[in-house]
């Protein structure tokens, strides 16, 4: 039996989407938690926690880029997949430059997300 799959932390202000994404990951065998804002994620998940953050860019208060920066500042050491409903190559480039490990444009398929997450999992378990 393989080790337990990587855990996903979803940060998105859209409740309906957050809920559906969590449900999809869970159904696909990937444990997931959902947070409605960057702050509630930072408050609940401490640095050093394993897993992968799936972060929306457009959020009131603190957006996805700001959250990535804070996680970096706080030494979270957690890979981040950026998701957004407003895709442009500039946004994608910035996300990658800021250190995101993946970028998905909403709406996205289960396949594309699972591939990304499994790739991360493989990389993290590699010697």
């Amino acid at each position, binding site marked *: 039996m393989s080790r337990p799959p990587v855990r996903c932390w979803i940060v998105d202000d859209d409740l309906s989407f957050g809920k559906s*994404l969590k*449900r*999809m990951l869970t159904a696909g065998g990937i444990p997931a938690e959902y947070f409605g804002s960057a702050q509630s994620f930072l408050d609940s998940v401490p640095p050093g926690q394993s897993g992968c953050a799936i972060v929306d860019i457009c959020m*009131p208060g603190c957006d996805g880029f700001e959250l990535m920066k804070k996680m970096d500042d706080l030494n979270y050491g957690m890979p981040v997949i950026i998701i957004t409903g*407003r895709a442009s190559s500039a946004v994608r480039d910035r996300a990658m430059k800021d250190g995101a490990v993946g970028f998905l444009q*909403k709406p996205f398929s289960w396949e594309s997300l699972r591939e990304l997450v499994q790739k991360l999992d493989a990389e993290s378990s590699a010697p």
Partner: protein
Amino acid sequence: MKAISKVKKPASLSPFESLIVDISTRFIALPADRVDGEIMLAQQQVCECLGLDVSVLWQRLPKNPGSLTTTHIFLPPDFPVPVPEMDAKDTFPWSMERLFDGETIVLSRMADLPAAAARDLEVFRHYGIRSSLTFPLSAGGGPVFGVVSFNSFREERAWPTDIVDKLRIVAVIFANALAHQRADQALRESEARYRSILERSSEGIYQVSVEGRILFANPAAARILGYDSPEDLMSSVTDLGSQVWANPEERSRVIQMAEEGGLVQGYECQFRRKDGTLVWVSLDTRPFRGPDGRIIYSDGMIENIDEHKRAEKALQKNRDLLEEIERIGNVGGWEVDLDTMKQTWTAEIYSLHEVDPSYEPTVEKGIQFYTPASRQVIERLLRQAIEHGEPFDAELEIITAKGRLRNVLVMGRADLENRRISGFFQDITQHKQDEAERIQLRLELTHLARVLTLNEISASLAHEINQPLAAILANAETVKILLPQAQDKREAIPEIVDDIIQDARRAGDVVRKVRGIVKKGDVQFEPLRINALIEDVLMLLNGSLAMNSVMPCLDLKPGLADIRGDRVRLQQVLMNLVMNAIDAMKGMPSRILTIRSATDGPDTVTVSVGDSGPGIPEAGRAKVFQAFYTTKKDGLGLGLPICRSIIEEHGGRIWEDQNPGGGSTFSLSLKAWREGPA
């Protein structure tokens, strides 16, 4: 006998007869100024020759026609009693009455006087006159104008017929000489009078020969023509036609007119002055013909009408200006005489009605130009003006004589005291068309601005639609994963499908709202809940808010009255204000959007959209609602002007305030919905 008498006659001349011949000769062709001296000399010579003492001549003078005044007298040097100027009528009433009937009074002695002549006797005695001979003076059978008497103090004496007849000749000579003198005097006076009139006249008067030489001119003529004196004028001008007439041919024409008509009056022409400048004159001229019927000279009267011409020109200029203004403004003036109901139109009104200037306007005819609907209005307005003096002001329609429809603005003011109504008539057809075009243009601009706004928010809209789509896709994928699995795993599916339906609805809502916004159309007022409208707009802009990390802060007062508004347009206004607020806060550390709704009295609802941006620089605040004023890099400067035009269309108001803590707030007031027509 004959021979004797021939020889005898000269020899037999007595000294008295010689004197009479001498006097007769002396008075022939005697100049008037020597008449008085000769009369007095003759009086003296007669007295001395006949041994008489005194001779007195009285005349009825023009200055004192009611009495008789002593004018010529001979008294011996040693005459003791001075004779004053006296009125012969008072002193010799009886004698004078007879004398003025043409009788000669012969008194050898005073005792011959009848009792009726008591006063005469008294006076004769007073002066010591003892004998008297008096003749009436009249010339050429004319009325008696004086008397002359010859008297003796020293003795009573007989007056032989021969002496009386000869002295009567002297009296006749005196009378003729005096009459001549009088006529001469009258002529002189009349000449002096005419001269004075000529000299003082302000009209220039002259006589000119056919050749154009000036024969006579008065000072005014010289003055009008700029010469120093009439003499200067007469000597300088040798040919009136070429020297004085500005247009010599005109003179020939006037002479011809005078030849045909005899008199030319009020002919206006220009004369050249001595210094070469021109003067406008009004000329009267009349030709004088010689015995052969040919004109030998003509006289002229000229009046300087330069001032008059100048005034006329100024008046004409004013008139031209007025017509010009009328033409430019398509405006005319009219007046109705309430007694005759005749109308007076200025030139432009004729051309606005497309009738020619010979048209005679009356109220009745004027009204026929209006379209039936307008005719009713103008008839009512005119009636009210005539009956109650009410002023009026109406936009009406006329159909011109050539069948063209025109929009006109008619204004009238009654002056019942002077029985008249006067007013203003303007063609506003073009203006009306412009207005219609402006409304059309505004509609299109409003639409354009909406589309532009939509472009700006399209990223946000994509986000807004992608969000539910993403949820739907995730949920559908989940269902797909769950379906092949065990029964217990599939229990969640109905709930997931519900979520899918909800998200699909959510996406549909967004699309519907966008479609509403881009729809082109006329203003449609309906009762609207302002709070719902605000929430709709925020939903559409949610993406923009999120993308720009703007915190919306709503303070919506519950239970507000419905407002009267056009949904799409008000959405556009709110969307614009929110987008502006978002733009204003770009790069600011704190980005808070505050939207409030409130009431301002029972009939008014206010909405304000505030930002925490840098605020508007003082210099720009006055311009924010001006078209094409913008602070944005790619802004058109149409957003706020269109907002204002929409709000004003709603009968509301939009304004801007600076927040005390920074940033600006745009507020608008809207009217509450009322049943029935607004």
